[in-house]
C-alpha cells in the first residue's frame, strides 16, 4: 500500500498551546479515513498543515511523496474545504465556477446534481446562506472536485439528518466509482462509523489510536463483574476507563478480544459489551483524570 499522506514527528505549538505533539501518521491511498477527536484535539491543524495552509513546527510532512508547501503539483491534486471556510463576496454559482477552473478532475454534472439535491439556490450570495447551506456548498465543492486527496473538515455542521444521509450516500456512491483518498474529520462518530475504513483518533494534539475501523469496532469492550475477576481479566490490557460500584466494577479496554478471551470472560461470569467508536472516543479523550487513571 502506498501512503498518500505520510507524517512523521509533526509538532506545532502556538503561543500557549500545543496543537500537535509528535504526530506520526500514514494515510493510505484510496481509503476513507475518519479523523476523530474532540474540539481542539488538533484535527483541523493537522489538515491545514497537510494542505500547506499552515506551517509545521517540526517534523516532516509528505503528500504524494512530496513536501506540500508551495508545491503546486501536490496542491492541484488536493481539495480542502474547511468547516469555517471563508468565501469571497460572491454567489453560489461563482464559487462553483471558480472551483471548476482549478480542479483537473472537476465533474460539472455531479456538482449540478449535488446542488439540486441539497436545494442550494445558485444565485444566492454565499454571505446569505444558512450554516447548513454553506456546509452543503462545501460538500458539493469537496466531492465534485474528485481530487485524489479530498479533505472534509466537519463537513455537515448545521445540516439536518436528511441532508446528512444524502451526503453519506453520495460520498459512498462516488467513492465506489472513483476511488480516492478521503480524510473526514468529525465528532458525529457513530453516524459515519460505517463509512470509515480507517480511524485516527486525536487527543490534545497526540494520536491516541490509528487502526483499521473494523478492528476498532470489534475491538474495545466494557467488562463488568466482581472486582477481582475483572481485574484479573484486564491485567496487561489497555484500560481506558474504570468505574466501581461497591464490589462490582466496570472496566473499558481498547484491546481486541478474540474467541479465547470471550470464552474466558464467560467462564469468569463477566459481562462483555462491545464498544462503539463514539464510546471509544468519549473514553479515550475524556478528561485529564481519566488519562491519569490509565497511566
Amino acid at each position: 500500500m502506498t501512503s498518500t499522506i505520510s507524517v512523521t514527528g509533526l509538532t506545532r505549538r502556538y503561543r500557549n498551546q500545543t496543537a500537535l505533539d509528535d504526530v506520526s501518521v500514514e494515510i493510505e491511498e484510496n481509503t476513507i479515513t475518519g479523523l476523530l477527536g474532540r474540539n481542539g484535539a488538533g484535527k483541523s491543524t493537522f489538515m491545514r498543515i497537510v494542505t500547506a495552509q499552515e506551517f509545521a513546527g517540526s517534523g516532516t510532512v509528505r503528500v504524494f511523496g512530496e513536501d506540500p508547501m508551495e508545491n503546486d503539483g501536490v496542491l492541484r491534486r488536493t481539495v480542502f474545504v474547511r468547516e469555517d471556510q471563508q468565501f469571497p463576496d460572491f454567489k453560489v454559482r461563482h464559487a462553483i465556477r471558480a472551483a471548476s477552473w482549478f480542479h483537473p478532475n472537476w465533474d460539472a454534472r455531479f456538482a449540478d446534481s449535488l446542488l439540486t439535491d441539497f436545494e442550494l439556490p445558485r444565485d444566492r450570495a454565499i454571505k446569505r446562506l444558512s450554516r447548513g447551506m454553506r456546509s452543503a456548498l462545501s460538500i458539493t465543492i469537496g466531492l465534485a472536485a474528485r481530487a485524489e486527496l479530498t479533505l472534509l473538515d466537519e463537513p455537515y455542521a448545521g445540516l439536518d439528518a436528511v441532508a446528512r444521509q444524502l451526503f453519506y450516500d453520495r460520498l459512498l456512491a462516488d467513492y465506489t466509482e472513483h476511488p480516492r483518498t478521503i480524510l473526514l474529520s468529525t465528532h458525529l462518530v457513530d453516524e459515519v462509523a460505517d463509512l470509515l475504513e480507517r480511524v485516527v483518533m486525536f487527543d490534545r494534539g497526540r494520536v491516541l489510536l490509528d487502526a483499521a475501523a473494523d478492528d476498532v469496532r470489534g475491538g474495545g469492550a466494557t467488562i463488568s463483574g466482581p472486582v477481582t475477576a475483572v481485574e484479573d481479566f484486564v491485567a496487561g490490557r489497555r484500560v481506558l476507563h474504570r468505574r466501581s460500584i461497591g464490589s462490582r466494577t466496570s472496566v473499558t479496554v481498547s484491546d481486541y478480544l478474540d474467541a479465547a478471551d470471550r470464552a474466558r470472560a464467560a467462564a469468569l461470569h463477566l459481562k462483555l459489551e462491545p464498544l462503539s467508536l463514539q464510546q471509544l472516543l468519549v473514553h479515550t479523550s475524556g478528561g485529564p483524570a481519566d488519562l491519569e487513571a490509565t497511566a
Partner: protein
Amino acid sequence: MTTLVKVTRYHLLDRLQYVVLPGGITLFSFLVNLTVFKMFPPPDGDSYSGGLVTLYIWLFIPATLTVTKSLPFGFALGLSRRVYYLGTLLLMVGLSTAYALIITALQAIERATGGWGTSLHFFRIPWIFDGAPFQTWLTSFVVLALGFVYGLWFGLVHRRWQVVGLLLFIAAQVVVLLGAAMIVTGAGLWGKVGEFASTLNVYDLTAVLAAVTVVLAVGGFATMRRVTV
C-alpha cells in the same frame, strides 16, 4: 488558460469590488464635478478638480481587502501562495492597463470638447497628466499599480500579524521616512534634493514610482511567503 490567468478571473468574479465600485465611484465623482462646474463656471477659464484621485484610492482599498476576502477560498481551491500572489499581480496589471486606457481616452475627449464644454480639467492634471497620450497612460498605469500593490501589502501584513502588526507596519514606514529626512538634514543635502526635484521631468517621476512599485511588490511577496489562513 494558465493558472495565473485563472487566478485573475477568480478575483474578477467579484465584479463589485474591482469594476463596479472603482468605475462607478469615479464616474459619480466626475458627474458631481461636471454639475458643479456647469452651475458655477470658473471665472478665470481653467480649473482643476482633483477628483480623479478617487479612482486611485478605489484601487488601493479593494487591494487591501483581497487578502481577507479571496485568499482563504483560494487556498481551498489548491492555490499555492506564489500562484495566488502572482495571479493577483496579473490582476493588478490588467486593471491598471484598462483603467489607464480609459483615463487616457477620457482625457482626449476632455481636451477635444474644451473640458466638457465648461473648461473642466478632470482628466487633465497639470504637469502629471498634461502631455502626450502615451505619457498619460504610462504614468496612470504606474500610479494605479503602485496603489494596488501598496494596498495588497497592507492586507497581507494584516492577515499575518493582525492589527498590532499593521500599526507597526505603518510606524515602520514613518520611521523610515523620518530617518531619511534626518540623514538628509544631517548631511545638509536638502538643497541637492530640491535641485533634483526641480530637474525631474514626468518620465523620471514615473520611473521613480515604478521602482517604488517594484519594491512594494517584493515586500508583499516576502510577507505572502508565510501567510496562513
